[in-house]
């Protein structure tokens, strides 16, 4: 889908980077591709590779990788009201391709067009997910096979922060959104000393609660005025 195309500009470098980093950490092609196809979650793949090269015990690698992905439980929950009624197989596929970008695009689209039918919502999700996930897998393969040639000065590490920020900024439409974002960021920075992913799991719900609270206050004020 067209709306997902711009994300390829950042997903592809990010994915190539994973191929490069994983190969440098000593993974063979089968393992690099195993990660990308079976896990399909960039941040946790990077976390796992980092810890494997630090020789962390397997259980720590698994727990940290999963902690980074716990945010996706929140995505899963927030899609429930929009995708109620989808079949079990459809939900399983949705779950497999539920990544940050496909989630962000779809939820934005659903909020902007509340009148869509379930079929249209599923089709939109399938479109974004295919556009994003297929190149993600291919680009990892490219990175693992020819990526060694990329000079280190190309700051691929920052592709992810820039994409995420670019997705979020246009969504900050109301004081409630701003407050949620502010509290979540402040919390994440204050808790950055905690082991991988834990700070996020505290900061993000704090931000969500703040957003909900501010929204509630504003509605109450409007109601009584």
């Amino acid at each position, binding site marked *: 889908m067209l709306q997902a195309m*711009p994300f390829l500009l950042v997903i592809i470098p990010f994915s190539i980077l994973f191929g490069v980093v994983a190969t440098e950490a000593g993974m063979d092609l089968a*393992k690099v591709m*195993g*990660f990308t196809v079976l*896990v*399909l979650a960039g*941040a*946790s793949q990077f976390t796992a590779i980092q810890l494997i090269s630090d020789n962390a015990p397997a259980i720590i*690698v*698994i727990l940290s*990788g*999963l902690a980074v*992905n716990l*945010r*996706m*439980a*929140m*995505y*899963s*929950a*927030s899609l*429930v*009201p929009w*995708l*109620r009624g*989808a079949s*079990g197989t459809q*939900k399983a596929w*949705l*779950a*497999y391709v539920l990544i940050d970008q496909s*989630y*962000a695009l779809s*939820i934005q689209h659903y909020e902007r067009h509340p009148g869509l039918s379930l079929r249209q919502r599923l089709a939109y999700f399938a479109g974004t997910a295919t556009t994003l996930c297929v190149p993600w897998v291919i680009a990892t393969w490219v990175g693992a096979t020819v990526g060694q040639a990329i000079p280190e*000065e190309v*700051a691929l*590490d920052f592709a992810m*922060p*820039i994409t*995420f*920020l*670019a*997705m*979020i900024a*246009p*969504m*900050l439409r109301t004081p409630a*959104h701003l407050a*949620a*974002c502010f*509290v979540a*960021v402040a919390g*994440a*920075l204050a808790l*950055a000393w905690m082991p991988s992913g834990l700070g*996020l799991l505290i*900061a993000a719900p704090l931000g969500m609660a703040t957003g*909900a609270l501010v*929204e*509630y206050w504003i509605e109450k004020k409007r109601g009584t005025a």
Partner: protein
Amino acid sequence: MSDLDIWIIIIALGIGTFLIRWSFLGALGDRELPGWVLRMLRYTPVAVLPALVAPLVLWPAANDGQPEPARMAAATATVMVGLLTKNVILAIAAGAITLFGLLYLLG
């Protein structure tokens, strides 16, 4: 670490990640969620993604976790352009240009 260990990690992460993503959609699927839950869930993306990124902006691993002007400026440019134009592509472009421009100038 042995090959077997690494495959165990890959498969455990794969299954675990799938179950996390499937959790609410699959298990709670068609039940009504209470109003306060829905209200909170509206703020999932604007809370989770910035919280994920903020430490990476301030303490980038590529710079051994030291604050770095090019990356901070790129993040600021991305957010400003995104807020002003509401356009994701323009915001990404602004961030990328700022980052590569400053890395080139400062590097």
